[in-house]
């Protein structure tokens, strides 16, 4: 237990990479450095904002009831025990972290959907690479041969693309070891999700040292079209690996920022599920689409501008979805496939 006498002349410094988000019914503290999430009462959220101005002694003196002092002490203990902050003499030496976000790449991530058509992957991947794209998700809505997947992966070799995810349909004729060989042969292949599988399982992959990577995921879930995307629940949320990732979520749209998609017809869109096409890859360069203000607009829809979400304590780590909204056609309404109610603080 902390002895308060020792610290009355100190400030309590909540580490700058522990971010507080106030929701309607409760608040969260997201510890980005350790990837932890804590729920706190909104009353404590107010208290935390005083930490930057008042010394511990001044905070205590402002309480009238002795029990408030006890609660406060318990709260400080909770913060310290979870390594979320520490006592310091001069709080001005510890500024907040800037949440400005930028990236040298014009496009950082892309989705390419395929059904019954052969996109010109060579051209698309080349264009994406020229724009600096790092992550590419390929979704196939019909059975694909390993050799076809391999031929696409070969095309990434001359590019600087760092991660490819493939979402493919279960094919009983393909031995699961073949996927294993594929991820081993192509380190750029980050994850294969095999949907429509008879069972849910992860295929473990051991690298030469000690780590176990789970790179092949079999799921019984059916993924018939782009309409399978957009589900939001506790599992779809994730605490970003870095302050940059967190800042991007706060300032930009957590799904669509710096994203380009090519849908199953070759139409260039923000996301395959959104209705508006900005041209077909066959005749429109992706770089030209990026000059369209309407295309860029979706990148900047932050949670603060979305109804309901703006009152939600998960908003800064939520994956969001702008294609399936609770009020169809209203791009600023809450995601339709989210079951969370921030006013009641529960998942339906």
């Amino acid at each position, binding site marked *: 237990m902390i002895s308060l006498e020792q610290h009355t002349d100190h400030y309590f410094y909540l*580490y*700058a*990479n522990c971010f507080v988000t106030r929701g309607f019914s409760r608040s969260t503290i997201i510890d980005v*450095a*350790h990837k932890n999430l804590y729920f706190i009462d909104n009353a404590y959220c107010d208290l935390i904002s005083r930490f930057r101005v008042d010394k511990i002694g001044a905070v205590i003196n402002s309480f009238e009831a002795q029990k408030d002092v006890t609660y406060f002490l318990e709260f400080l203990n909770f913060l310290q025990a979870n*390594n979320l902050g*520490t006592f310091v*003499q*001069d709080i*001005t*030496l*510890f*500024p*907040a*972290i*800037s*949440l*400005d976000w*930028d990236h*040298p790449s014009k496009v950082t991530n892309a989705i390419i959907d395929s059904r019954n058509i052969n996109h010109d992957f060579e051209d698309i991947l080349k264009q994406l690479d020229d724009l600096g794209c790092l992550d590419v998700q390929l979704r196939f809505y019909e059975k694909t041969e390993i050799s076809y997947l391999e031929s696409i992966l070969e095309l990434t070799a001359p590019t600087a693309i760092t991660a490819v995810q493939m979402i493919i349909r279960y094919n009983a004729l393909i031995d699961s070891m073949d996927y294993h060989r594929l991820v081993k042969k192509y380190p750029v292949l980050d994850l294969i999700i095999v949907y429509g599988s008879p069972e849910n399982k992860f295929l473990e992959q051991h690298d030469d040292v000690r780590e176990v990577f789970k790179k092949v995921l079999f799921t019984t879930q059916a993924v018939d079209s782009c309409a399978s995307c957009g589900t939001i629940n506790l599992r779809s949320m994730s605490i970003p690996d*870095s*302050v*940059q990732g967190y*800042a991007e979520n706060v300032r930009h749209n957590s799904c669509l920022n710096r994203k380009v998609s090519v849908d199953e017809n070759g139409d260039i869109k923000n996301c395959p599920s959104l209705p508006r096409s900005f041209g077909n890859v066959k005749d429109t360069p992706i770089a030209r689409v990026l000059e369209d203000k309407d295309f860029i607009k979706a990148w900047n829809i932050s949670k603060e501008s979305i109804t309901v979400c703006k009152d939600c304590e998960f908003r800064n780590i939520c994956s969001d979805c702008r294609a399936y909204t609770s009020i169809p056609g209203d791009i600023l309404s809450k995601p339709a496939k989210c079951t969370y109610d921030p006013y009641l603080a529960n998942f339906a």
Partner: protein
Amino acid sequence: MEKSFLRINKNERSMSLQHIDLKKKELVVKRNGQTYNLLDFNAVLERRSGFTVQDLVNDSQVLEESLFHEETSYHKEHVLKEANELIDFIHYYIENTSVKVIGKYEHRKLNKLKVLYLATSLGLSVPETFVVSTKADLIRLTKEYCNNIITKAISDGVYLFTNLHGYYSYTERLTLDTITSKLSTSFFPSLIQKEVKKLYEVRSFYLEGAFYSMAIFSQSDKATQTDYRKQGKAKLASRMVPYQLPDATSALLTKLFQVLNLTTGSADFMVDEKGEHVFLEINPVGQFSMTSIPCNYQIEKIIAEKLSCI
């Protein structure tokens, strides 16, 4: 703000020097079949060395062969001396023909002791520092400072990976036990400092008059108490957060960078329980990403803007 650039990593192997022509102002390298005249570039950022001996020759076999049969190392040493002289000139030539230069090649190495001396004379507080070479002296210091002494490399620590082992050295605490049992009566002169009881560490990246500082809290874990790089299997990663150097410290540190003629570099401090900022060292080729990323300073963007704004 789109500019073309070339990044040269040392030991890249895919790059080689073609020729230098002082009259025509050419310094031509070839990489992946492309040739570049490095004097065509008008801004340069230097971090460590872009060239090694291997990059200079088209056929590295030359280096492996021995000409002087009785004195096999003579040939290698000779080639190395020639190469280093040439590498020196390559950097100098590029820097001199560029409009904008960040980080100079000649500044890639600093003498730690010299910097400590300059820091004290400017008024920065530094740890008590000694170089000793006898066991008797070391035991005396250990007793005087109640076991709270550390040793570290005078220049760079060991960092070597062979096929079988990885060798690396960090700042280590010395105990009377190790000294009495492991050391001989006299040894190679070694740098000894009184250990600073730190609350947190500070790393300040300096770039043309501005500091981008970071506080590192690692105390909560025993494994990282002497050197935070040694994180091993520590459960919680060190806390790395933005920091603002006190005005007085920042003024003195600016002066130190100026005296050393450095426009960039990274300074390390320990902050003790009294809030005193104890200066440790300056790393002239400081990695800015290790400060920039946790604190979201976007130093890489600031540097890119400085380089392209000419």
